[in-house]
């Protein structure tokens, strides 16, 4: 059983006052996230990441399609005992202290006040909130509220955690601490689904990522799979390559970089296989030192997928 599945999840909003038109916030999203995965949900601003998370939390209702968490429909209140959620730019009650807020949420999961205080204390330690925990939240900075938000998402020791832009508002130290926390969650078997447009976080943490662009799923897979899809060709290192042989085959090479001692690094385009060129170079007296695929970075894949996906988000029909 997967931790999260969505099947054809679609959300349209009505935009415009006089002549409302359906705006496609999310279009036919189907994906699954296995238990124990750290899954990165990537996309530029306005791609539909937060919409997806709100649909999964049933803060909004889908126009069509459905979603399940831990095998139960997202509307099932019982499944919420097993999940945690950090909203984007969280906001809490001004007049409560951080500690009171966490105890308040802990009690919703059936904890006694004492157990709630113990959990709150431990989690606030984990997210780096010290003596400030007894201050009212109105006095907290954005980064501190974000830390409290992360703590409240973990108050029930969830099996699946949804984090919407978890690094937002955090200083470099805070970002590192949150990254470490996500890895600790993964190590104890928790599934982490986090949305971000910060690709370095995804590269550091995720086993798989999905890229959302303009409401549509543009790509999904492991980092290896996605960067392989965006392969930029091959890097061939040869030795003993004579000048006339290099000149003869230059049209089939993107770039040749001399490495000294008649060694060259040759960049080959992805469009043609390297086998024939290797055979020709070997026939010309060269020796093959190494051959490696030139992989794109996640950023390359991201930019490419986001550029390609350019549908009109104003739908002419609304899904039923």
């Amino acid at each position, binding site marked *: 059983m997967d931790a999260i599945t969505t099947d054809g999840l679609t959300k349209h909003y009505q935009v415009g006052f006089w002549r409302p038109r359906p705006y496609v916030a999310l279009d036919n999203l189907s994906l699954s996230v296995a238990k124990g995965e750290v899954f990165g949900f990537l996309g530029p601003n306005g791609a539909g990441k937060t919409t997806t998370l709100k649909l999964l939390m049933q803060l909004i209702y889908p126009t069509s399609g459905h979603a399940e968490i831990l095998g139960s429909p997202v509307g099932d209140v019982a499944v919420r005992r097993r999940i945690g959620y950090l909203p984007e730019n969280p906001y809490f009650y001004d007049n*409560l202290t951080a500690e009171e807020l966490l105890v308040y949420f802990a009690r919703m999961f*059936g904890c006694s006040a004492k157990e709630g205080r113990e959990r709150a204390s431990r989690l606030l330690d984990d997210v780096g909130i010290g003596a400030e925990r007894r201050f009212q939240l109105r006095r907290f900075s954005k980064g501190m509220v974000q830390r409290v938000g992360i703590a409240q*998402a973990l108050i029930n020791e969830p099996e699946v955690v949804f984090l919407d832009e978890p690094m937002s508002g955090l200083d470099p130290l805070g970002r590192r601490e949150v990254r470490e926390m996500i890895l600790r969650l993964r190590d104890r078997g928790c599934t982490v689904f986090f949305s971000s447009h910060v690709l370095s976080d995804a590269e550091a943490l995720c086993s798989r990522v999905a890229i959302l662009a303009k409401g549509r799923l543009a790509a999904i897979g492991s980092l290896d799979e996605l960067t392989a899809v965006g392969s930029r060709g091959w890097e061939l290192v040869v030795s003993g390559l004579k000048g006339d042989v290099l000149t003869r085959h230059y049209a089939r090479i993107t770039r040749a970089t001399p490495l000294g001692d008649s060694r060259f690094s040759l960049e080959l385009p992805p469009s043609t296989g390297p086998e024939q060129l290797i055979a020709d170079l070997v026939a010309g007296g060269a020796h093959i030192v190494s051959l490696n695929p030139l992989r794109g970075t996640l950023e390359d894949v991201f930019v490419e997928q986001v550029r390609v996906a350019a549908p009109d988000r104003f739908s002419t029909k609304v899904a039923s």
Partner: protein
Amino acid sequence: MRSIAIIAGGVFRDSIRDRIGYGLVFFSIMLMASSYLLAQLTAGQDVKIIKDLGLAAASAIGLFIAVFFGIGLVTKEVERKSIYSLLSKPVTRTQFVLGKYFGLVLTLLINLSVMVLAFYAVLLYFEMTTLDGAKAAWEAPALDPRMLKAFALIGVELMFITATAIFFSTFSSPFLSVAMTFAVYIVGHFGEDLKNLNAIVQSVVLPYITKAIYYVMPNLSALDVKSAVVHGLPVSGTSMVLATGSCLVYIATLLVGAILIFSRRDLK
């Protein structure tokens, strides 16, 4: 039930720490205390002035808190997005609405109790400092326990106003919600005038509309016994039970409506 109680406790804790709420209750107590000074200027009507002002202050301040805090309960949660974290917990939207409602009702009733204590404290001081001869002119004793009936019905009215405020705030903007809640309060208090509007207005259609409004809206004037208790007139238990019972039916209807609307709403 547990979730409702926890949410209600959260509302209560948040409300009692709100400076505006503190200020309003303090203002009300100061108003009651100042009525003592005003009473010194009015020969023979002194105790009546204190009672009138005290009951009016409790009612008005309670109304203010019920409307503005009641509307803020849902709209502030949605606008500030604090509701996102709350509804991701094992809490249904029904529990959310009921928890918010009962939390504010608890706050209002405690505020009202504080105002009752302040009110009786002023009256006690007045009783102790008034000569027996002057007391003979009073229509009712200063510490008349029947005034508790008026406070109890103010409490019921505030419960109704809170339910109305929450109902409107589940589907309209804060400004419109305030306007509509006050409109219901005013119409509820002038229902008899609406019913008899045909006697003073030359219109064929309007009397039907106003009569329809009269029959749909609650009769809040039945909850207003302030004048009767100040003058020492009897307030029957039956009329209190009937007025409270009908108000509770309205409250239940408003809360069911609020839950049905809020449960279908997208929290963008």
